């Protein structure tokens, strides 16, 4: 058995052990034991994935009773990369969740489901045939569904989230199944090596492409299949949200890459444009919803849609450009998409864990009731801050590098050697740049809001005022996450070069390392060295800091209750801007898209209609796609279901008539 095979087998064994341990261990030990085992699973996956990414081969054969192509788990380089992403998040999440000792997070169910979820996620990128892919995929879905429901007894909304999640997951699953089935039918086998033999322009390839895109898009939270996201990610326990958003969603991305890079690599131009459209729409819609959300976890959930939209935008751009032989830009776009996925895994899982820490400390996830946590929870604040910078794509974090590379590839994609590549590309690229720019701008606002409202200013509720820093294991996990965000941002060169090996036949032509971990795109002629940027900032900061030190020695600061307070001393914390008010201008600007419902109730004083006793303003921003697209369909189904009851109205005569009519029809058909 090869090392990869042993690694996969070890993961399965550890997974089984973790399940058994969770079933048998005493409640006090369960989280510790489960957490350690899950960490071990993730570490094993990390090593296995790294080995696979560096080119090690080997695999694990799953026996199956049905006559199918062999179910082989043998990750290639790309699969290895995604195993790495998933297990990296897995490590963070496992460490984080170890410290919960009571409640639903520490329940037996949760700890049985966690290893199942982790193992399932890691086996998906290892699969080399559609059936084992689907097998691992469904194990992942099952594990995550159970984890999501862990909290079901405390909030009614969990059950509804569970239904949405299962139904949408199944939708994705069926799309993928159908897509693979179409490909398998056209190529005569279920293994990926068979599937990729299909002719790119054929009808089957087109149908399969659409089906698979829909399936993976659903898992990757792309519009309009994202509706589960704002329900599920907030309702799941935070470490599960972190794993879902940080890792599971990447499996959707992996699926997209599998289709676009490996199975159907040379598709027609409209494939790339379609992916760009879906990605761009998701990015904009996701960030718009995130920016106006006041629920921290809903905000993070929608932001996931945004990031995945950008990943697919990059993927689509890369397909489109490759179709026009703009190889350098195409490679850069693809590597950028991958880097974005990697970096999203780092910052989004940290953000969700940070949200978990906030909930742990305050029991609140409504930003309007938070505030002032920076002083009370310093480690969380710093980690969340760094991750927010990553999400807002600010240097020197990982998010910035990825977005920079994506933009570089786009602005160089419209032309090659001075000539316009194609009309399609020269229209698509500026739109894509504009979309990314607006997305980036709104992301900036979103995360300034999230961080500023939660951690800065004065506490807006008693819970926030009484918050204490979270236990050490949670802090360690948060710190690790934040460090990874910084590390990925500071050393993009080696990472990008490594990532490029997974998708490019000639990785050094696409990406090279320059300076101290800087990245250069030789085909495009763009260079970025974050470490040099840090050095430069430090150099220009020195005089400023010296000036501050000198000034501070001469003129120490005074602390007062409120320095100015808007001109009065009665400025209470309630009068601060909240998250809702922070986003209000944006809601107005995008009124037509967001369709907020406003309700103003004015209560007049009994004596006079001209005097107002109090005014109540309510504004809700619901998911337009859900209310306009899904609700009508669901209502239709409900009405249909009610009407359909008449089919089984209890009358035996009616039932006999069914049989009789069937008999008559068969007789008529037979005699035709």
């Amino acid at each position, binding site marked *: 058995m090869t090392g990869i095979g042993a690694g996969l087998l070890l993961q399965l064994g550890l997974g089984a052990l973790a399940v058994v341990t969770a079933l048998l261990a005493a409640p006090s030990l369960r989280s510790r034991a489960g957490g350690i085992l899950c960490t071990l699973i993730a570490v094993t996956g990390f090593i296995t994935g790294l080995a696979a990414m560096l080119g090690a081969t080997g695999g694990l054969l799953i026996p199956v009773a049905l006559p199918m192509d062999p179910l082989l788990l043998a990750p290639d380089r790309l699969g290895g990369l995604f195993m790495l992403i998933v297990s990296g998040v897995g490590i963070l999440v496992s460490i984080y969740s170890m410290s919960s000792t009571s409640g639903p997070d520490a329940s037996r169910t949760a700890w049985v489901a966690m290893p199942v979820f982790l193992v399932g996620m890691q086996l998906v990128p290892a699969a080399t045939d559609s059936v084992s892919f689907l097998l691992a995929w469904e194990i992942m879905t099952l594990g995550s569904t159970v984890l999501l429901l862990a909290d079901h007894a405390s909030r009614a909304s969990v059950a509804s989230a569970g*239904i949405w999640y299962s139904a949408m997951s199944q939708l994705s699953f069926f799309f993928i199944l159908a897509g693979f089935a179409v490909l398998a039918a056209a190529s005569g086998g279920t293994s990926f090596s068979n599937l990729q033999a299909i002719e790119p322009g054929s009808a089957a390839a087109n149908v399969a492409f659409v089906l698979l895109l829909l399936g993976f898009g659903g898992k990757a939270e792309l519009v309009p299949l994202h509706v589960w996201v704002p329900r599920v990610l907030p309702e799941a326990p935070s470490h599960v949200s972190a794993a879902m958003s940080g890792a599971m969603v990447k499996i959707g991305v992996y699926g997209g890459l599998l289709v676009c890079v490996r199975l159907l690599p040379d598709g027609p131009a409209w494939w790339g444009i379609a992916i760009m459209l879906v990605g761009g729409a998701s990015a904009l819609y996701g960030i718009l919803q995130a920016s106006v959300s006041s629920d921290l976890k809903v905000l993070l959930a929608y932001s996931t849609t945004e990031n995945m939209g950008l990943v697919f935008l990059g993927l689509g751009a890369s397909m489109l450009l490759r179709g026009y032989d703009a190889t350098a830009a195409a490679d850069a776009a693809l590597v950028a998409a991958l880097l974005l996925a990697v970096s999203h895994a780092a910052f989004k899982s940290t953000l969700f864990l940070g949200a978990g820490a906030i909930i742990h400390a305050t029991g609140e996830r409504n930003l309007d009731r938070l505030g002032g946590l920076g002083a009370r929870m310093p480690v969380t604040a710093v980690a969340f801050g760094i991750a927010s910078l990553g999400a807002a794509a600010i240097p020197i974090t990982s998010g910035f590098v990825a977005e920079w590379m994506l933009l570089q590839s786009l602005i160089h994609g419209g032309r090659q050697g001075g000539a316009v590549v194609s009309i399609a590309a020269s229209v698509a690229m500026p739109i894509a740049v504009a979309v990314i720019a607006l997305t980036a701008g709104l992301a900036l606002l979103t995360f300034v809001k999230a961080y500023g409202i939660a951690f800065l200013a004065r506490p807006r509720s008693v819970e926030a005022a009484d918050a204490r820093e979270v236990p050490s294991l949670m802090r360690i996990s948060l710190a690790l996450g934040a460090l990874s965000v910084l590390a990925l941002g500071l050393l993009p060169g080696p990472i990008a070069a490594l990532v490029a090996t997974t998708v490019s036949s000639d990785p050094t032509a696409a990406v090279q390392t320059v300076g101290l971990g800087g990245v250069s795109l030789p085909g495009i002629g763009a260079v970025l060295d974050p470490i040099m940027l840090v050095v430069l900032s430090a150099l220009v900061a020195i005089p400023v800091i010296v000036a501050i030190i000198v000034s501070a020695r001469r003129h120490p600061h005074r602390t007062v209750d409120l320095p100015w307070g808007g001109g009065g001393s009665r400025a209470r914390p309630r009068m601060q801007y909240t998250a809702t008010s922070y986003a209000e201008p944006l809601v107005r600007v995008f009124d037509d898209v967001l369709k907020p419902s406003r309700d103003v109730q004015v209560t007049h004083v009994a004596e006079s209609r001209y005097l107002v006793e109090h005014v109540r303003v309510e504004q809700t921003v619901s998911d337009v796609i859900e209310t306009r697209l899904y609700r009508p369909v669901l209502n239709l189904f409900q009405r249909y279901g009610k009407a359909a009851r008449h089919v089984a109205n209890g009358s035996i005569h009616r039932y006999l008539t069914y049989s009789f009519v069937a008999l008559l029809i068969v007789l008529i058909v037979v005699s035709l």
Partner: protein
Amino acid sequence: MSFVLWIPLVGPLVFAALSLLLRGSSLRRFVGVAASSAVLVSGLFLISAVLNGDIPEGGGGILRADALSAYMLSVVGAVGLISTWGGLSSAASSRTKNAAGYEALIALFLAAMSLAVLADSIGLMWAAVEATTIATAFLVGHHRTRRSLEAAWKYVILGSVGVAIALLGIVLIYAASVGTDTPTLSWILLSQSTRGLDPALITAGGALAVLGFATKSGLAPMHSWLPDAHSQAPAPVSGLMSGVLLSVALYAILRIQSITNLVIGPEFLRTMLSIAGLLSLLVAASLLIRQRDYKRMLAYSSIEHMGLMAIGVAIGPAALPSVLLYILGHGLIKATLFVLSGRILKIEGTPVIADVRALLVRRPGLAIPWLIAMAAIVGFPPFSIFFSEVGIIMAGWSVGLGGVVGAALVLLLVIFAAFTRLTVQMTIGAPATTVPPSPQAFTPDYSTHGPILPIILALATTATIAFVAEPVGTLLLQATAVLGGTN
């Protein structure tokens, strides 16, 4: 080896007689279990014989156990064992005067199903299928309430009429064989390709026979008896009916199909079964959306699964191993679910979904196995239904039934969503009481209210069987080969 063929027929009959003799003895409870075990053990024996290349025959060629028959016999035994064992608690509680008859009828039911799968003659097979109706008529009406009487009446009328249509079809097939040298009903003889049977007669006969057996296998539009009968029968009986009776009827369809395929090719029955399968899925989807009764929910789920199996049968050899595995997986899981539903019904006193809330919090002992079995029945891995569904869907596209399978997927999605919603309504969430008066007033009930071992066995078997390439894979291939498939 041929004496083994008689064990599943005679054994249950002996136990049935014993049950009538052992009035008042506590041992009587175990008659069903013993009869199922006899069937299962002989089925496993026959499987091992078949795998060794032997094809036991008996009774002057009336009984025959090839790979398919042996497999089906084992499924009957296994599902019977799960149902009867799991239903021990409910059987024991009903210490009424007709309890003896109950056990005897269960044993008879098992014997009839064993005969149906072992008979070499289609005629005998038909008689055995009809005998299952007779054996289960009183089982469905066991509770002697108005509702169970209604269910039993509908079941017998619709079932007998349907099976009568099947008889008409078999008669036509026989008429076709009369046109050749040796009139016969032995399907092994009928399915010899060189006989030169009349295609028109075989078309008509095959169509009518399939239509008739479709009634027993719960395919729309002949399914109407099923939700009523399944919801009113005692839980173990529902388990047996849903788990294997439907599949035994499907087995009959498979046998008929293997004859018609040789004479008129697969197209005709493929169309017919595809339509029936899709209709079944449509009916299940439509009526699950606003379902109110959890036993009926399970019944419609059976219609759904039979529909998908019918589509698998329509697809042909490429999907048959999946269909056969499906029969086992669905049988075991559905039996488990019915057994559990019986326990829930007994303890909660209501079959209405809306009245059973927060089961996971209140009665984890029942809710956890229920949820696991639900996950299995909707097709989550590692349970074997997952592989069966994937196998059928994949095979469907490869034989050009992409449209049918695609439509099936759409309906399956609706069914999945409805099923999930209903299950969540039953199990998930907090109990309705807003403020529990005191911690003592609310203690979770961890009891399983009956034997848990059969449920664990059923779930474990379904979870692992798909990964047992040897000998299950070989057996499934051999069984497919029996039906004329080379795949």
